[in-house]
């Protein structure tokens, strides 16, 4: 462990000075403790490519803001290194980092007009008056607030304030922009509109963005890659698709999307499959992802939409088949959200498409359900 770390650092030292696209911004084994007792961030590693949109996603208190603050320079790492374009920036004060930042409460200066807010980063960089004016106007146009330059922030709606905050973080053309739950205070419609807006700006400008949220839908729709945080470490860093389709551990499987869980013990491994005996006695064939060897406890993870109701006895397309009792049916138009009791788990959810033959599901009824072992992932306990 320590040696690989050393190796990594050496690699990095070699690259110092000439950044490459894959090493635009890096956290290298960063740790952070506020009180000297508890590590809030334990060994955080992240390597961000130029122009990438990376999201830190995790439950409340998992250390997302802390990591962002360390990148921005408002908190110092207790251990580890943060690099920007190949240079360590641990000791660089925030105003010299040139990183744009959007705060959760926007932090627009209330005593300045919108235009003055946008001009602030340009004035401190001593741009000429004309240049400043031009850039402010362009930034306002980018967020479609051309006519609002003279207003005070308090005279804007939440969504407009959000746009101003975004424009202010971008107006001085930083290469990296950090956003800490920028849409947290907006209602659902506005949030979706702003997600689209941010994505558009990201694509237009090609800036690198690190985005913090605890809304998984937001993370899934916006990001190139998502780092799922829990307990101060990254549980999985992957594209949205990979996170959903191939979670590497039980936390990620539960945190992203809906998920059925079954608990048991590995009895046999066959290639990339394994045989698991559930606590309720049944045997399930699953894909061995993060399960231990024979005898190890494991959590089976199964997406509701990958479970089907088997109508014909002879249907052999699933290598796992069980009899289940329907507990509850919720009609959702295109599908029926059905809760069943199977393998001792009566919180088991499946989504039955509203196709011919399925519409007759009633609570109390017994049905055969089945799933493919490739959709059933055996993860850590």
């Amino acid at each position, binding site marked *: 462990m320590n040696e690989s770390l050393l190796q990594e650092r050496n690699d990095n030292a070699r690259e110092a000075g000439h950044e490459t696209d894959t090493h635009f911004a890096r956290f290298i084994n960063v740790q952070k403790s506020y009180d000297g007792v508890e590590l809030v961030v334990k060994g955080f590693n992240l390597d961000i490519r130029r122009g990438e949109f990376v999201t830190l996603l995790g439950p409340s208190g998992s250390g997302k803001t802390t990591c962002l603050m360390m990148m921005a320079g*408002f908190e110092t790492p207790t251990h580890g290194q943060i690099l920007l374009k190949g240079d360590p920036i641990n000791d660089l004060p*925030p*105003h010299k980092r040139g990183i744009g930042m959007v*705060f959760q409460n926007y*932090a627009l*200066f209330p005593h300045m007009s919108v235009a003055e807010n946008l001009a602030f980063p340009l004035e*401190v960089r001593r741009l000429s008056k004309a240049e400043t004016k031009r850039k402010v106007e362009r930034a306002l146009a980018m967020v479609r607030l051309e006519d609002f330059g003279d207003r005070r922030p308090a005279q804007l709606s939440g969504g407009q304030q959000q746009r101003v905050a975004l424009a202010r973080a971008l107006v001085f053309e930083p290469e990296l922009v950090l956003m800490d739950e920028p849409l947290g205070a907006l209602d659902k419609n506005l949030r979706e509109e702003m997600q689209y807006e941010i994505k558009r700006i990201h694509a237009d400008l090609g800036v690198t963005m690190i985005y913090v949220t605890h809304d998984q839908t937001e993370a899934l729709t916006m990001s190139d890659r998502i780092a799922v945080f829990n307990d101060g470490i990254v549980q999985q860093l992957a594209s949205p698709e990979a996170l959903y389709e191939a979670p590497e551990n039980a936390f990620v499987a539960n945190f992203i999307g809906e998920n059925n869980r079954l608990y048991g013990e590995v009895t046999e491994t066959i290639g990339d499959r394994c045989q698991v005996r559930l606590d309720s006695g049944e045997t399930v064939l699953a894909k061995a992802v993060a399960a231990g060897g024979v005898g190890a406890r494991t959590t089976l993870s199964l997406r509701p939409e990958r479970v089907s109701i088997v109508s014909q006895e002879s249907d052999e397309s699933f290598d796992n088949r069980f009899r289940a009792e329907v507990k509850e049916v919720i009609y959702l138009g295109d599908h029926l959200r059905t809760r069943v009791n199977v393998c001792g788990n009566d919180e088991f959810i499946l989504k039955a498409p509203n196709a011919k033959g399925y519409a007759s599901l009633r609570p109390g009824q017994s049905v055969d359900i089945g799933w493919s072992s490739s959709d059933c992932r055996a993860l850590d306990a």
Partner: protein
Amino acid sequence: MSQSPSVPLTTADGVPLKTSLRRAVRRSKVKAFLLVSPLLLFLGIAFVMPIVEMLWRSVDNPEVSTQLSRTVTALEGWNGDALPDEPVFAALVEDLREGQAARNLGLLSSRLNYEKSGMRSAINRTARQLRAVEPPFREALIEINDTWGELETWRLIQREATPYTLSYYLAAVDRQLTPMGEIVQVPDHLKVHVGLFWRTFWMSAVITGLTLLLGYPIAFLLTSLPLRHSNLLMILVLLPFWTSLLVRTTTWIAILQSQGVLNDVMVALGVIADEARWQMIHNKAGTIIAMTHILLPFMILPLYSVMKTIPPSYMRAARSLGGKPFLSFRRVYFPLTIPGIAAGGILVFILSIGYYITPALVGGQSGRFITNYIAYHMQTSLNWGLAAAIASILLFVVIVFYMVFNRLIGVDKVKLG
């Protein structure tokens, strides 16, 4: 559902809605009024009445018009060019006789003496010899005291016969009326008040500035320290409120006097020579040091209450946008604390110009405030009219400051917590 506007709304039993609403809220209104009535009564007796009384006294001028009523009547129509005729002198004799019998000539003689020195002794001497005075009174009175032969005396009596006067206000700003009715400055050696007013104002301004200089960082610390430490600091800030003002002031005497702690330490350290001990008390320095200390909490608390509402993310935003620490402070944080500065400033300044006990104890001769002169006129010279006039001017200045402040910043910004 819709009701024509001409038909008044009624409740179910036909009583107009407004009437029944009024009835319903009357009880709670009466209750609320009863709850505050002791306070209103107290404020009326202890605050409003004394101020009205003071304003009244500053212009009230009853002495001449009541105690020399006959003389004043006889003087009606006198043109002031030559000494009045015999009837006026006769009336004066009668007035003085009555006054002596009633033993209230003292008030009259002091009142006239404020305007023209020598009047007290003139009246007293004349009154003593009244019994023996025979007509013609004009010659007799002038014989007793030359003052009665001066035109000025009679002009003064005629002028001061009005029930109200501005002469106390004139005296309060070192002015007086000449016999011809012009406003002129008093002779230089009698000028005291204007200088004292200015001293009070500039020293109060210095004290306000010092409390700001000392208080701003403390208030900032209070908002930025972790709760545990900031609570301790807050207790230290409030500690002075829990000790007597007198104790705090006298402690400064113990520290600052020439044989005091500070001088002793500096002599012991060799910073100053034993013969050259610093005079830090009973002068302006003493007043400024002690008052700055005493008024500091009144600057810190309003500042703190404003700073507390400024989220730390503003400064962070400014820094992340490229602002150097000081520039970010100047452009972002400082402007947001201006309401607090104004609130603390106005509070300290107003308290300071009205402060009495500390300048009296540690100010010596040169560090006194105008308030000490109000006390002097009330307790020693017994010229209450003048004391009232000075106090009214102070009140007026405070009101003006208050109104300017309210116009620029808003009184609701003054919060102490």
